């Protein structure tokens, strides 16, 4: 894929949309407008953005509990996404899902997930569906370093490998699973090394460099699309905030480590790169920032003004044809 200036600018815009969306989620979670849980993707925007940039609109994505970024990068409507988080009738799932169970069929987003590791088996479904229909679609499966130690990782990657399913497995290694550091849960240095055990390529990616993500994702997606089977990408990255909004203790992550990663903020790094290369000037950046800000304000207004679901409908959608 040739990365034009226009594409680069849209990558920047997508990362910013995710960032600002998440900051709004944080604010409105703290104000208790948003019930339940909220796991923010701040700091990891480059992964979803770079990955989804090489996908076709009808390719599939399965996501995680930290999934707003995947939804947005896949093209989900900000209003309906925000409304779902607010538990409103106008949300993608009519308020039945919430943050950890967002499904957006119109962009083939087959779900964020409240169960860590559950998306891996599920992601094989779109892949075999595509293979049976020779549609050329690809299925992308995002999951965390924590999920990589769930049994579904093994079953799903092996199954996809033997069936040569068009899947790209994307391990978002943000170094922690809740409060557990990756070196406490995992003996190998890189999750990508495990790919060898399944006879598929494993690739280490700088998850804070959107261009690195895009380049490596492009190869993995092309490989899947051409029928050669799955790839395991390991994107090294870091979340800026706690595991969820309101997490009480954050001492398990050394301040020094946090500072180091803050310096490698994916959006700031890419912005600098764009300006230094003359892809866009600072005014252009500012204009995008304003546009995105407007979109987010609108999404919050849409959610806030949306009706709540009708309690009479609580049993609707359990069975087919309801």
């Amino acid at each position: 894929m040739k990365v034009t200036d226009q594409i680069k600018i849209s990558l920047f815009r997508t990362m910013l949309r995710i960032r600002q969306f998440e900051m709004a989620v944080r604010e409105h979670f703290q104000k208790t407008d948003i019930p339940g849980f909220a796991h923010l993707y701040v700091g990891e925007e480059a992964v979803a953005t770079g990955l989804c940039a090489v996908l076709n609109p009808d390719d599939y994505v399965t996501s995680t509990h930290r999934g707003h970024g995947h939804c947005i990068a896949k093209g989900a409507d900000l209003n309906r996404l925000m409304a779902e988080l607010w538990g409103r009738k106008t949300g993608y799932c009519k308020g039945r899902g919430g943050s950890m169970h967002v499904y957006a069929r119109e962009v083939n987003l087959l779900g964020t997930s409240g169960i860590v590791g559950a998306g891996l088996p599920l992601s094989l479904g779109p892949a075999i569906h595509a293979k049976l229909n020779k549609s050329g679609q690809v299925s992308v499966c995002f999951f965390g370093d924590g999920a990589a130690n769930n049994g579904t990782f093994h079953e799903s990657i092996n199954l996809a490998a033997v069936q040569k399913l068009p899947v790209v497995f994307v391990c978002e290694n943000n170094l922690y699973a809740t409060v557990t550091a990756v070196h406490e849960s995992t003996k190998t240095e890189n999750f990508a090394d495990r790919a060898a055990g399944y006879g598929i390529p494993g690739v280490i990616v700088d998850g804070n460099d959107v261009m690195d993500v895009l380049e490596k994702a492009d190869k993995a997606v092309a490989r899947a699309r051409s029928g050669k089977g799955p790839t395991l990408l390991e994107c090294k990255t870091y979340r800026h905030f706690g595991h969820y909004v309101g997490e009480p203790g954050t001492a398990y992550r050394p301040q020094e480590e946090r500072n180091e990663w803050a310096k490698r903020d994916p959006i700031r790094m890419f912005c600098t790169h764009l300006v230094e290369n003359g892809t866009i000037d600072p005014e252009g950046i500012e204009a995008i920032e304003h546009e995105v800000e407007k979109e987010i304000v609108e999404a919050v207004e849409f959610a806030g003004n949306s009706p709540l679901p009708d309690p009479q409908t609580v049993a609707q959608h359990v069975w087919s044809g309801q």
Partner: protein
Amino acid sequence: MVREITCTQAIAEGYAVAMRKDPSTFIVGEGIADRGGCFGHTTGLLVEFGPERVLDMPISESGFVGMCAGAAACGSRAIADIMYVDFTTLAMDQIINQAAKLRYMSGGQYEMPLTIVGVSGANRSGGPHHSQSLHPLFMNIPGILVVLPSNAYDLKGLLAAAILTNDLALVLPHRGLLNARCGVPEKDYVLPLGEARVIREGKDVSIVAAGMMLHHAAEAADKLSDRGISVELIDPRTLVPLDENTILKSVKKTGRLVVVDEGYSNCGVGAEIIARVQEKAFDFLDAPMQRIHPVSAPIPFSPVLEHALLPDLDKIVDVVMKVAR
């Protein structure tokens, strides 16, 4: 004359009916392709439908059930042949947390045409891991159809029906009935889900029993008739949806009810059916309703212990005698 086939053959035919009817249907399982399944119950499918639609799986129950759920959401019709129902426990997250809820969680954006087939029930020392009747577990989860056929005719038609619905379904043929034969038309047919069958009419006591228990209850009914007790025997055939009306109608006539089921009693089939009758036909009852279940212990291996645990002819006769008195 209608030819007779076994339940094993009926499974293969039920699969084929659905796969012919909807070409988007595929089946996965362990050793189900050229080896024809560990009971011989998928014989012929590979030849008729080809390797793209009949796929052998690694021993990855969570992996392939999840794959089927995802594919079903995308518009394929999927069959996961999981061998024994005991192995659904390995895929419970994908069944309960994903497949059963996906339509609901998504606010109706997806259908779930996935059917899981697992042989169920105790038979000749299968032991604790190959004998269980787990249907009450699934009955407790909204969004799962539960089918417990008692004969090859029903099995073929109900299996095809389950596959062709857009709901997640569990179809549970009984292991002890796999070789049981009955008349089954060669032609393709589909039976309605949620329709009980009155196996024999009677006036003194209603017995509701599915799967293998129906056969024990039928024997008991013969014996009871010798003793002057007339049993009305009902095979619910599907537990979800449950044909409540047929049961209520019968109890209103007989005034007495005994439920026999191979699942455990605690929050089980007996509890459910008896509760519903109590709610809706209390005034018609002439005696306390009774339920007969296995002893609440794992299914033991040794034949004497296995026998001691399960409901059988004598236990059913005893209980019905007391109820009828």
